[in-house]
């Protein structure tokens, strides 16, 4: 009898509060599995965002700090500067990381702050009920773009990986998705690379995960996965945007 799959010790027993089929759950599990596999749970300190993942501190089986909206990278910086040998990560949504937290994100990367950022791009503000995110697609209808996102009024969706990879301090940056098994497995590899970069003290690492919000997209969970693939992926190409790491290159 062999266990093919069982729940990681990286997660607590608290059931997720996420909506049915929300991929926040998948990404949580991947991060937790990676931390377990790398053996860093006992020295990990996570930072939860304000967004649907606000309760992340209930789920990750390690010390956690809950940040103000957008400020997770600053909070993580504070923690990391106190405990440079601990593993510090943030878990953030697109509103959190790419709107209100833009400066904190850019400067954590520019500083080469040795932390890992997990960035959930679901093209919407999930928690507050479906407003436009900085990553919402052109034409996308949201609570605050009821006539569809228009470049003239709302500008263009931000590509964070592309933008941050122009910064020298960034060590590992990859965009992945979780819309099917293959991509989930690849996402996990990417997350492992990012944590490995941190363990090797290479500087700032970030994994952007194209993720779903069935509730606010108004779709079934499976339709939502298809929407990631059909609509998001073409605008947000998957791939490694920055990789300054010998070891990690072999890994990835």
């Amino acid at each position, binding site marked *: *009898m*062999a*266990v093919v799959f069982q*729940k990681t010790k990286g997660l607590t027993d608290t059931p997720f509060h996420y909506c049915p089929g929300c991929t926040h759950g998948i990404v949580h*599990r991947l991060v937790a599995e990676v931390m377990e596999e790398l053996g860093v749970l006992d020295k990990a300190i996570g930072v939860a965002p304000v967004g649907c993942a606000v309760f992340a501190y209930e789920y990750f089986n390690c010390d956690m700090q809950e940040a103000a909206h957008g400020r997770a990278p600053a909070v993580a910086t504070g923690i990391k500067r106190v405990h440079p040998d601990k593993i510090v990560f943030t878990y953030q949504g697109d509103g959190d990381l790419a709107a209100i937290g833009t400066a904190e994100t850019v400067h954590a990367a520019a500083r080469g702050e040795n932390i890992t950022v997990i960035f959930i791009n679901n093209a919407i503000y999930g928690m507050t009920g479906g407003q436009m995110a900085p990553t919402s697609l052109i034409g996308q209808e949201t609570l605050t773009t009821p006539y569809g996102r228009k470049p003239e009024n709302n500008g263009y969706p931000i590509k964070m990986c592309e933008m941050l990879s122009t910064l020298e301090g960034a060590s590992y940056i990859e965009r992945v998705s979780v819309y099917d098994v293959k991509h989930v*497995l690849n996402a996990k590899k990417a997350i492992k690379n990012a944590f490995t970069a941190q363990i090797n003290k290479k500087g700032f690492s970030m994994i952007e995960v194209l993720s779903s919000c069935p509730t606010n997209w108004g779709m079934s969970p499976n339709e939502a*996965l298809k929407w990631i693939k059909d609509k998001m992926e073409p605008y947000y190409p998957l791939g490694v945007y920055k990789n300054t790491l010998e070891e990690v290159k072999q890994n990835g």
Partner: protein
Amino acid sequence: MKQVIFNENLCKSCELCVEACPKHIIEMDKDKLNIKGYHPAMIREENMEKCISCGFCAIMCPDTVITVIK
């Protein structure tokens, strides 16, 4: 013994596992409501043998409902 175990009360009936299973053997248990009020996912006894223990269902499940044993 091959087993796919559903931690029923965690299931939210999202059907991602259903779509992920290459053998199409997972379905929602329309006769049952779990404590959250959802029809949980299940595999009928008779279909269990078709399972190839690929773990895809568990990989796609957002709520870590599933354990796969070979």
